[in-house]
């Protein structure tokens, strides 16, 4: 007996329990996800990443409020939020504080917020984040926001999990060389310049625009900070398969720029659907998950076949430099010492 029936029936406590079971990778969590999987695939998964303190939680809070009470009178959407914070590498403990910025969402049963710790995973997410998202998808949440740990430059795992990635920046975080480095900016489908009431917003936007123009040379060039007709350029591009990440300014604490950001998220979804990229992303996403699971299962099942004695002996050979790490792997996999 698994938890799928109450979860599908909208039982919030069962859903919360399921998320715990999935996080702990328990047999109950696994079987329930197995039977729920056919109910997944309809949610729009939106990743929110960026450096610590750029305002990711406040932004997610405002986005959720907007989707719950659309000012244009559209029906409210059911929203789930998975907020990831780091675990201590020393004690395994964690303080998960993203809910502090989301208090306005309390009391609304159309919103489900779950905090999770990374539990040793790098890359900005936890190993079980994909599983939690599946459970929330099956439970009928239409938009699921995945807020990563405050990320530096290479925490880009979230892009493999979601349909739309928001990278949140704030003024004053770095010069324009930061903007041309590889990594987090490359995964952006939408760039959000939050805290746009702060000084330095023009320079930050210029740096981001410059980065985009370098990455997409087909687009018109910024000349001395003067932008040629942006909307015309965007319209032109909408006709092609190429997506150039728009930049949206927000002041999340005041809700400024949120309707424009919501429109940009909808625009990205439309683009994905029209170009067939929705399907392609889904495929890539599931392939990533398949390979991750395959890898960990293979290691686990192989590990159970190798005696601890042999494993330790190889480790000793490694320590005494008789074998290199590659040779040690070879020895363990093939029973050979030297290549």
């Amino acid at each position, binding site marked *: 007996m698994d938890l799928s029936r109450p979860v599908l029936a909208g039982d919030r406590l069962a859903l*919360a329990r399921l998320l715990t079971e999935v996080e702990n990778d328990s047999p109950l969590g696994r079987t329930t996800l197995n039977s729920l999987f056919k109910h997944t695939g309809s949610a729009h998964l939106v990743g929110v990443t960026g450096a610590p303190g750029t305002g990711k939680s406040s932004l997610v809070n405002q986005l959720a409020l907007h989707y719950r009470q659309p000012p244009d009178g559209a029906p409210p959407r059911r929203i789930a939020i998975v907020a990831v914070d780091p675990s201590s590498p020393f004690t395994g403990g964690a303080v998960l504080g993203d809910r502090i910025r989301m208090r306005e969402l309390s009391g609304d049963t159309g919103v489900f917020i779950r905090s999770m710790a990374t539990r040793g995973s790098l890359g900005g997410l936890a190993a079980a984040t994909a599983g939690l998202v599946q459970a929330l998808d099956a439970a009928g949440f239409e938009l699921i926001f995945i807020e990563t740990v405050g990320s530096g430059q290479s925490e880009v795992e979230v892009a493999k999990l979601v349909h739309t990635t928001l990278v949140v920046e704030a003024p004053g975080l770095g010069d324009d060389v930061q903007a041309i480095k590889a990594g987090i900016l490359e995964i952006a489908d939408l760039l959000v310049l939050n805290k746009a009431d702060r000084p330095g917003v023009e320079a930050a936007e210029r740096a981001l625009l410059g980065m985009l123009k370098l990455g997409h040379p087909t687009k018109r060039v910024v000349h001395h900070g003067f932008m040629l007709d942006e909307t015309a350029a965007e319209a032109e591009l909408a006709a092609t398969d190429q997506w150039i990440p728009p930049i949206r300014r927000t002041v999340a604490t005041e809700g400024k720029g949120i309707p424009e950001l919501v429109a940009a998220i909808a625009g990205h979804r439309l683009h994905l659907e029209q170009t067939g990229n929705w399907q392609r992303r889904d495929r890539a996403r599931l392939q990533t998950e398949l390979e991750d699971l395959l890898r960990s299962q293979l290691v686990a099942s192989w590990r159970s076949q190798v005696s601890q004695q042999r494993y330790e002996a190889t480790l000793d050979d490694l320590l005494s430099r008789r074998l290199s790490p590659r040779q040690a792997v070879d020895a363990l996999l093939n029973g050979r010492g030297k290549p």
Partner: protein
Amino acid sequence: MPEKKIRVLVAKPGLDGHDRGAKVIARALRDAGMEVIYTGLRQTPEMIAEAALQEDVDAVGLSILSGAHMALVPRVIQLLKDNGQDKVRVFLGGIIPDEDVAKLLRLGVAGIFGPGSSTQKIIEDIRSAVHLTA
């Protein structure tokens, strides 16, 4: 590898704005290997119960310095029960007069820690209370 972690919600219900104690406790529980969901100031009992549900916590730690504990704590306990979370253990910290301590323990509070309580004792009490219900 994934393992069972003790999850604790640390919340400050009511209107007093002094959360240093709550933060010290959150940090101590973190250092004891627990996952602490910290919700911040001025939480209503409804907000606390809802967060406890969504986060599927094992324990709730309330910090109250305002004197409103006799109004707030029974309400939190009742709401947890209404949500089917009878097993969630409730701990209380702050300024609680002796005559209220006995009443609150009878209502089902699992532990009450006044000023000067050692964090080690709090950690041990939470661990043993949670393991009793697991």
